[in-house]
């Protein structure tokens, strides 16, 4: 009897989260897959016809938006690493007893609503705003503008998702045993060598986690492209949003969502295989 209950315990423990996932992840997923294969319109209703063409039509019509989303996702992720790594490094190794204060300062702007922060960028980047206003016509040509271009969108994305890169890198750096670094110096490593051969490999799992946490939401974001972008900067998230909420084209919106999910999953999987945690740990063990 006691043994029987013991065997059941782990299942009972995952029951709440299992039910949660089933109710709010699995069931909606199945419904969405179903919807993505239907045809029809709002007035006459949608019927299941196993219309796989929805997927081909979606890729055909909006393929360039998929590519643009992945490209913006890539650019923002690289920028995030470039900005976040030095910051996290400085806080972890030079932050002293104020570490948590510095982390709090990085997170502080994120207590303000996502939309509001993005609109603030719009105000800063506007043609006659505080930055471009004085520069245009003097240093920069008169028709120069940033707002409503890809530069504005990528900047906004990078800014909005920066903490998701800072925090995991910080955690990875913070966990490095200082004695390991000291050992490197004892073995006559230069500062550069100690960084490239000890600190960097040990922090890579943090970078890896950061990349997943920024690249996925950035690629499917639609707010930044909507607020900061122009007609040439539409991302796949905007298309899905319009198809779903404006046009009530539920099958097309669902098909596009699943295509995006598949592309991101394949991308992440390939990334994990080439630069996965396994290899990272091996590199660290060397």
């Amino acid at each position: 009897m006691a043994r029987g209950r013991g065997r059941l315990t782990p299942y009972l423990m995952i029951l709440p989260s299992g039910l949660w996932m089933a109710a709010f992840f699995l069931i909606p997923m199945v419904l969405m897959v179903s919807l993505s294969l239907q045809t029809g319109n709002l007035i006459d209703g949608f019927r299941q016809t196993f219309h796989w063409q929805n997927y081909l039509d979606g890729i055909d019509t909006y393929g360039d938006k998929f590519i643009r989303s992945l490209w913006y996702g890539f650019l923002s992720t690289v920028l995030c690493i470039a900005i976040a790594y030095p910051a996290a490094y400085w806080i972890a190794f030079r932050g002293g007893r104020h570490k948590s204060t510095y982390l709090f300062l990085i997170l502080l702007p994120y207590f303000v609503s996502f939309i509001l922060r993005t609109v603030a960028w719009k105000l800063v980047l506007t043609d006659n705003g505080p930055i471009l206003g004085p520069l245009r016509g003097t240093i920069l040509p008169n028709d120069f503008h940033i707002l409503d271009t890809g530069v504005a969108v990528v900047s906004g994305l990078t800014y909005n998702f920066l903490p998701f890169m800072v925090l995991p890198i910080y955690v990875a750096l913070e966990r490095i045993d200082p004695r390991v670094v000291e050992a490197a110096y004892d073995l006559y490593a230069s500062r550069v060598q100690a960084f490239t051969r000890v600190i960097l490999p040990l922090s890579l799992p943090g970078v890896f986690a950061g990349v997943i946490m920024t690249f996925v939401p950035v690629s499917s974001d639609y707010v930044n492209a909507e607020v900061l972008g122009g007609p040439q900067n539409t991302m796949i998230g905007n298309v899905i949003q319009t198809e779903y909420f404006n046009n009530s084209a539920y099958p097309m919106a669902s098909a596009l969502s699943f295509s995006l999910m598949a592309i991101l999953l394949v991308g992440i999987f390939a990334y994990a295989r080439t630069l996965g945690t396994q290899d990272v740990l091996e590199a660290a063990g060397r």
Partner: protein
Amino acid sequence: MSNIDPAFLRGLTRPRMARSTFARRDVLRMMGAAGAGLALSACGVQGQGGKEKVSQTDVQKYWAGKVKNGRLNWANWPGYMQDDRETIKAFEKETGIKVTYKEVIQEMGPWFGKIQAPLSAGQSIGFDLMIMTNGIQLEQCRQLGYLAPLDLSKLPNFQKNAGESFKNPSYDPGNAHTIPYESGVTGIAYNTKYVDEEITSIAQLFDAKYKGKVGMMGDSQELGNFGMFLLGIDPEKSTKADWEKAAAKLREQRDKGIVRKYYSQDYVDAVSKGDVWLTMAWSGDVYSLTSPDVKFVVPKEGGTIWTDNMCIPKTAENPVDALTLMDWLYVPENNVPLTEFINYMPPIPSTQEILKQKAAQATGDEKKDLTRLATSPLIFPSEADLARLRHYRRLTQAEEQEYQKIFEPIAKGS
């Protein structure tokens, strides 16, 4: 769970049924596949069409037992009410109905997207009165039966005071579901600080010298109409071939980099600040919201005239109060202050006379403002102006899908 294709289920099950022994995993896998198949083929979304005809019994049935609750939630567009809410305050004082007023409507497509799900489920959308432009989404609301049938006997002031052209419109025969709030014109606004020539024509929106400085509207009907005007096509009589020609022109304009952005409401801000120099615009917005440097013109090729309508969502909690407000706004004296602020065409012709009288009694700046208003061609357009204005084309369900497919992707960069 009704419309499962039997052939599909057979396809899923047959080959495995033929095997004599089942491994446990196979059975499980099969059950999983069949379950997924069931789920996949279930849950088609029910059609809701065919409810647009309204009879007197429908009206009676809807209004039976509905009483005044003393409160009202009103969804409107920005710039459609005085900043100090003067008109609402007057209404509250006179009727004792408390109004909660929200400027939540920016563009018809997204608004319809927001209200569609609760309305189709028969739930309240939190508003008792909303302002919808005649066009694709209003047509859908009517056809889907989302709007309360209006009891015209409770709208005596509308019957008495509304202009003839505002009664019985083609988009809502017999005012079965809507009565006008006001009408306006889609034309061109330009900032005279940056544009040093006179703008008179849609062709100037396509001029390469304004590269990156032109704003267009994202709404597919507004955008499509301007493409058609440019080509000399009357949108009301247009065909699919015309739409394709217009779409090609609009794409060319976009791909040359002339269009900076496709706007919903925020063009007002952009043209005032100089982010765009000239843009498609709605007449009253320019009159009331933008800086004095911004001018509005009805292009010589033509402009769109549209009507924003008051209507009651079927699931409203306070429909009687909403109906009371609708009729109250048709008392000319109640409506005049609204027109003075929002600067669109009022549905009550006697407004012009009242404004003229007010102007005669006023002095100084106020007299100048009122005279300008009472004689403004944008608010009381001349016959010649009216002749250049066109309505949105009414689209059948099939046409609408074609139309959207042609124009919708332009603003999305496809």
